[in-house]
């Protein structure tokens, strides 16, 4: 019983993390049909930026609450700048090329950015534990839950709800839906598709950086964190159906719970179980749970 409860809580926390990391990836894919490998870089830059911000803030002994806000804002600002540079500087040149070619372009950018991280922050690892400590913890029965984790779950839920609402009811969201459905028709109706692309990419970049900033207090911010994230986020998005926000949510929940179950019952299967779940889901639904039907082009 205790194990079951622990699995559910751990699973929810991990799912919240996965969703926050994957939502930007699925958004960019949905709108632009780009599988953005640099999403891992956004995440890493966000985490590093947040860790730096935490260092600046807490070393001066400033109040805790503002420190967390400062970390998040710093990360989002970095995501914005980085997204702008990538979209305007590189991706713009390959719009309309093969989807696979665009993946390779983002892979190349990812490789470059990995060394930029080493260049800026050096090989040492950073810690940004302060918000986690400041948030404290509560006891539920025999388990101790970190308030920070609970906050993460709430935030993930908020992002899911706001994301869905924004897509359905705001002007920009509706424009987005049109562009997703048919780019050319949208352009013919006078929608500035290029602008929509740019804005979407920037939002995706900021979401990726936000994911990194939120995770920074929970992990050791070190080289190579971006690599793991991109593979994991892809698994989540593939299970849910690429380009679907609901799909990312369901995918995150499935992967989160499966991993938590593995950790508590059979720890050696931890990494394996995520991809096994993915293979299982895709065996029955080749394009994920919430995929749209694609017409065949002759």
């Amino acid at each position, binding site marked *: 019983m205790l194990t079951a409860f622990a699995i559910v809580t751990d699973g929810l926390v991990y799912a919240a993390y996965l969703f926050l990391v994957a939502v930007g990836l699925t958004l960019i894919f949905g709108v632009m049909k780009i599988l953005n490998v640099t999403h891992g870089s956004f995440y890493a830059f966000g985490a590093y930026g947040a860790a730096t911000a935490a260092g600046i803030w807490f070393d001066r002994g400033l109040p805790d609450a503002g420190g967390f806000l400062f970390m998040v804002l710093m990360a989002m600002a970095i995501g914005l700048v980085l997204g702008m540079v990538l979209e305007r500087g590189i991706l713009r040149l390959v719009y309309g090329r093969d989807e696979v070619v665009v993946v390779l372009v983002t892979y190349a950018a990812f490789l470059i950015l990995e060394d930029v991280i080493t260049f800026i922050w050096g090989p040492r690892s950073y810690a940004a534990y302060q918000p986690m400590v400041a948030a404290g913890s509560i006891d539920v029965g025999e388990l101790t839950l970190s308030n920070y984790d609970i906050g993460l779950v709430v935030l993930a839920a908020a992002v899911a709800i706001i994301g869905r609402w924004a897509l359905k009811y705001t002007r920009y969201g509706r424009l987005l839906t049109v562009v997703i459905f048919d780019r050319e028709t949208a352009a013919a109706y006078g929608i500035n598709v290029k602008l929509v692309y740019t804005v979407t990419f920037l939002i995706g970049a900021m979401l990726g950086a936000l994911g990194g900033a939120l995770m920074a207090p929970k992990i050791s911010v070190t080289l190579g964190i971006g690599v793991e994230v991109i593979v994991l986020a892809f698994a989540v998005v593939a299970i849910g159906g690429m380009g679907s926000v609901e799909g990312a949510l369901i995918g995150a929940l499935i992967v989160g719970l499966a991993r938590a179950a593995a950790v508590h019952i059979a720890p050696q*299967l931890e990494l394996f179980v995520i991809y096994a779940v993915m293979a299982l889901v895709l065996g029955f639904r080749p394009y994920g749970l919430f995929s749209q039907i694609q017409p065949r082009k002759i």
Partner: protein
Amino acid sequence: MRRGSYLIGALAFIVAAAIAPWLPPWLVSLATIAFANALVVLGLIILWRTGLVPFGQALFYAVGAYTVALLGRYTPIRDVFVVVIVGAVFAGIIAWLVGFLLARYREIFFAMLSLAMSMILYGILVKTETLGSTDGFHVEAGTFLGFRPDGQERNLAIYWLVLGFSAVLAFLVSLYFSSVAGALGNPIRDNEIRVEFLGISVDRLIHLKLVISGVLAGVGGALAALAVQHVDPAMAYWTTSGGFVFVTILAGAGSVAAAFVGSLVFELVRSLAVDFVPGEWQMILGTVLLLTILFLPDGLGSLVSRLRGNKAAS
């Protein structure tokens, strides 16, 4: 024309084999790894011509390598020819199994799913103590038809072994490219529904191509394991696959020779970069990849054919 290029290819292999004893040892080791990896790239070219980019070819590479390592550890089989072939067979079987899932996908889904498959193996290798966990383990030296060379002699023997496998497989792959199944790559890439209407099962053809590329990667991994005498989970990691994709793009899928030349250039540049500008390696890699995609979409190999085309025109 075709016979001419076979002749040139055979000549190139003979020269490469003959000059080895006079080459500096580091160059021999480097060429050994480069040609072993070129076999993996050859498999990538087969898929690339069909419009598929596997981002997880390291899966089969690692299966080949670990098979060799495990044979050395748990069985008395030591002969290098036997272990490499067993490694290739195992890689082929794994490719056949994952092929049932992978062959249904195209484009980025194929790329990322193959990546996920290789990450499953990576996860297993990292977490399994008996397979050496993150450190990996030592690979037995092996015997060459009963001989057991040492030191530099062994390096040369491995080099010739790699060249031998390369020559045979390069010949077989170029035969495959001129066969009907091989020639159907480009039509599938352009429009697979039309190929279906010709009465050909595209999924089965892609499944076959996957198995072939898996076997090639298995041979490459097995040879690399023998050459380095060590295996570790990084062989299954997605950055290893990324390296193979990188060489494929750089070399272009135009010819079989491109795989070998491209792989050799890649290893040379890598060892130079690690010597002179350590820590900038990924940045160089990324920049070159980006520039190649932007300005030379068909790879370095296309420079040769472009020059040839100009000559013919003038």
